[in-house]
């Protein structure tokens, strides 16, 4: 018999980034027994990496701003694939969530008249991002972390969850995992579980994501029978570092462009003027002079094309490099040095200054940065009810990058942090309501617990299996080469064949060492999540025979209006679990009410 400790709660939240912590606050305020379980130490989640800000139409800088414009920008940025109701809720509730952070101690940068300042970002009509220099994510996570701690919430740090378990009626009732410092197995039973585990981006070679972002939540939801949507929609952020090689992929905030930085090719040309899609022509500057006037006068000038949505900019950079107009290290130049004073740059972008100085030996106040696309954000994820974030399996909720729909085919910068607090709160309410209404004690099958534990321990006793690090590197190389920023049908088919082989290879790994804080073993238990989410991305990409947002097909270069009317929904139907196949089919998008549709058709 496997040994494990059991903890019982009303609501268990897996993941302690911005959304998980916001959900915990809400559920805790209801007086429920709440636990937060996270794979790293508290306060280290990927949210700390968010730099630029959180989008909310408070109208402090441009009084013309309102939720309707924010909604419109979000839908257009997402290439209309968004769940309209999520985009509406997000735009309507974001300002209240930002003010609420201030009541909990967050200290945002201020306007002249003492209100929360707002900065320009790609795809947003007005300066809309509440921010703290270029460390807004840290401010968000610290504020929520301190609030959670002050509420005496139970936090299980450095705990990896392996699998969700249902009760006999199919309600999610348990989760099995282990404590990383000791290797001791744990089981959580609860009336409701919230998945807040973040992204899947570690499956690519060049990524801004940390080791944690392996898609645990996406994968566990799929294995539990939940629907996932839009898995082909992965965002490659246009500006990651490209040199030195060891830091390739580390993010360079869009705030550099929001604060006046521009993209140039090796000829010194501001090439983004050549890449303005019809959809954005009306609101984008036609000349450099107009673009430069826009920073001070948004009403009478079009926005600089450097701030087109991320998918547009990433593709443009890719094309420039391919055409031989890239930098020596295969990127393009991001130049703020020639456009703003050193004092301004250091004040507005302190961590970018620091990051380039320390890691690349480049002084961004005098020298342009070299940048290129890096895997950054997962738009697709668990199909949820927009009001409550409930998944299609009872007892399960999903938020942040684990949920799909909010951002459609492409997320606008700044909409992620606001997504976390808007839907984190709603999931907290949804899960608390569900837990209060649920009758009986959550029970799970002891045999399933035993099987999950045995599977996790298996690599220790096995002789001659693969090294988890080798398998991870090969998986990343496969996804980078075959399911990257530009995709084609034949390569996606090749990827899917290889990914099936990875299923076998990850089931025969060998791990050395003991149970206590063993990164090799920890990686072995992360690999199934990486393979499952990679398969779902490749399947989605193969089926979406068009280019839309973050999903670009070389063999179908334009958008297809018919494809724009559907989500690709994936789920495990007959059998569940890591080895079971995932089916995929198109399903129509929810119908948008005419009054919202009318907002999208307005010129500005």
């Amino acid at each position, binding site marked *: 018999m496997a040994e494990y400790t059991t903890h019982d709660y009303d609501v268990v939240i897996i993941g302690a980034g911005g959304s998980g912590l916001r959900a915990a606050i809400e559920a805790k305020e209801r007086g429920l027994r709440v636990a937060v379980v996270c794979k*790293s*130490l*508290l*306060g*280290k989640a990927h949210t*700390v*990496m968010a730099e630029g800000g959180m989008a909310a139409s408070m109208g402090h800088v441009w009084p013309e701003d309102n939720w309707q414009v924010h909604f419109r920008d979000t839908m257009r940025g997402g290439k209309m694939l968004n769940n309209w109701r999520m985009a509406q809720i997000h735009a309507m509730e974001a300002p209240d969530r930002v*003010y609420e952070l*201030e*009541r*909990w*101690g967050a*200290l*945002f*940068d*201020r306007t002249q*008249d*003492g*209100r929360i300042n707002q900065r320009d970002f790609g795809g947003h009509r007005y300066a809309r991002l509440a921010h*703290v220099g270029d*460390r807004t*994510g*840290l*401010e968000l996570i*610290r504020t929520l972390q*301190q*609030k959670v*701690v*002050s509420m*005496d919430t139970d936090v299980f*740090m450095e705990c990896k969850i392996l699998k969700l378990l249902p009760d006999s009626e199919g309600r999610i009732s348990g989760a099995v995992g282990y404590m990383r*410092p000791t290797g001791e197995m744990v089981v959580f039973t609860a009336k409701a579980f919230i998945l807040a585990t973040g992204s899947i981006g570690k499956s690519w070679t060049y990524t801004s994501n*940390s*080791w944690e972002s392996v898609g645990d939540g996406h994968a566990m939801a799929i294995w539990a029978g939940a629907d996932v949507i839009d898995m082909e929609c992965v965002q490659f952020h246009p500006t990651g570092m490209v040199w*030195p*090689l*060891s*830091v390739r992929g*580390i993010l360079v905030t869009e705030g550099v462009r929001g604060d006046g930085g521009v993209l140039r090719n090796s000829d010194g040309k501001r090439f983004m003027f050549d890449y303005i899609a019809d959809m954005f022509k009306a609101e984008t500057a036609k000349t450099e002079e107009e673009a430069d006037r826009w920073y001070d006068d948004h009403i009478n000038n079009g926005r600089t094309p450097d701030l087109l949505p991320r998918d547009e900019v990433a593709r443009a950079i890719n094309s420039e490099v391919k055409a031989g107009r890239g930098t020596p290290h295969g990127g393009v130049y991001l130049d703020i040095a020639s456009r703003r004073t050193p004092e301004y740059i250091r004040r507005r972008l302190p*961590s970018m200054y*620091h*990051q380039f100085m*320390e*890691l*690349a030996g480049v002084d961004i106040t005098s020298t342009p940065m070299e940048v290129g696309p890096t895997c950054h954000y997962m738009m697709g994820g668990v199909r949820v009810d927009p009001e409550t974030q409930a998944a299609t399996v009872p007892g399960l909720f999903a938020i942040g990058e684990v949920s799909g729909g909010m951002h459609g085919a492409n997320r606008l910068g700044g909409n992620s942090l606001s997504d976390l607090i808007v839907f984190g709160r709603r999931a907290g309410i949804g899960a608390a309501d569900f837990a209060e209404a649920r009758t009986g004690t959550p029970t799970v099958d002891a045999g399933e617990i035993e099987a999950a534990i045995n599977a996790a321990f298996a690599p220790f006793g096995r002789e001659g299996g693969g*090294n*988890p*690090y080798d398998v991870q*590197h090969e998986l990343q190389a496969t996804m980078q080469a075959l399911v990257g920023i530009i995709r084609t049908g034949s390569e996606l088919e090749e990827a899917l064949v290889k990914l099936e082989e990875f299923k076998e290879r990850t089931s025969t790994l060998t*791990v*050395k*060492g*003991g149970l*206590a*804080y*063993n*990164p*090799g*073993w920890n*990686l072995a238990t992360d690999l199934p999540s990486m393979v499952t989410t990679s398969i779902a991305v490749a399947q989605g990409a193969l089926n979406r025979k068009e280019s839309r947002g973050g999903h670009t097909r070389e063999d179908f270069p334009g958008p297809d209006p018919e494809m724009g009317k559907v989500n690709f929904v994936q789920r495990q139907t007959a059998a569940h679990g890591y080895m079971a196949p995932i089916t995929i089919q198109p399903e129509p998008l929810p119908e948008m009410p005419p009054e919202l549709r009318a907002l999208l058709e307005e010129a500005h």
Partner: protein
Amino acid sequence: MSDNVTMRIWRGDPEGGEFTDYVLPNVEGEVVLDVIHRIQATDAPDLACRWNCKAGKCGSCSAEINGKPRLMCMTRMDTLPEGAAVTVAPMKTFPIIRDLVTDVSFNYEVAKTVPAFKPGPEPEGGFRMQQIDVERSQEFRKCIECFMCQDVCHVIRDHEENKPKYAGPRFFIRFAELEMHPLDVNDRRELAREGAGLGMCNITKCCTEVCPEHIKITDNAIIPMKERVVDAHYDPVAWLGRKILKRTKKTAQEAAAG
């Protein structure tokens, strides 16, 4: 640039351990954490170390590199003496879990004792604050909780017995941050003096020197807090005032109670 680099890494557990040498090819532009990752991927898959963002923003990968507390992700190999072995050891102030990973739960326990932020009544139309007023606390909110200031602080580095009565530099800046926050109405000065042991700090500035965020911990947080505590506690006029007048701020004990 020499062809190879020797990494001398502390391996062990709470029972004990020793430095182990790993010799690897030198790769241009790498930081210490990159080399650790290459060792994990080849020679020692079970080499324990914490890391997350790899960009100096999360404060997970603190270690003592050539005897000095630093973030492994922000320490370029080419800034270390060429030709000599690079030693990497866990932070000394905290109990060992394994290899480079220490048990930093002390810090999370102290965090629970800091009375939460509490704003005064919100005026119609929301709070207004000037940038210059928020910048004082913003400096302290840059803290990434790498705990290297705690590691290097000699009040607890070599004196386990001081830990129960000493919060350490990371929490002195937390007290200062809240004390200087334009909206906060809790008064934590007495708690900082009594419970957190602010008086035990004798301002050697070791914490300031190691802070990767360049927070002026001693000058901007600890010394002003010491002055405020002195004002609150030892000033006879203030003492009399506390006795006679209605207080506008809560005491630390009341604050701690909720």
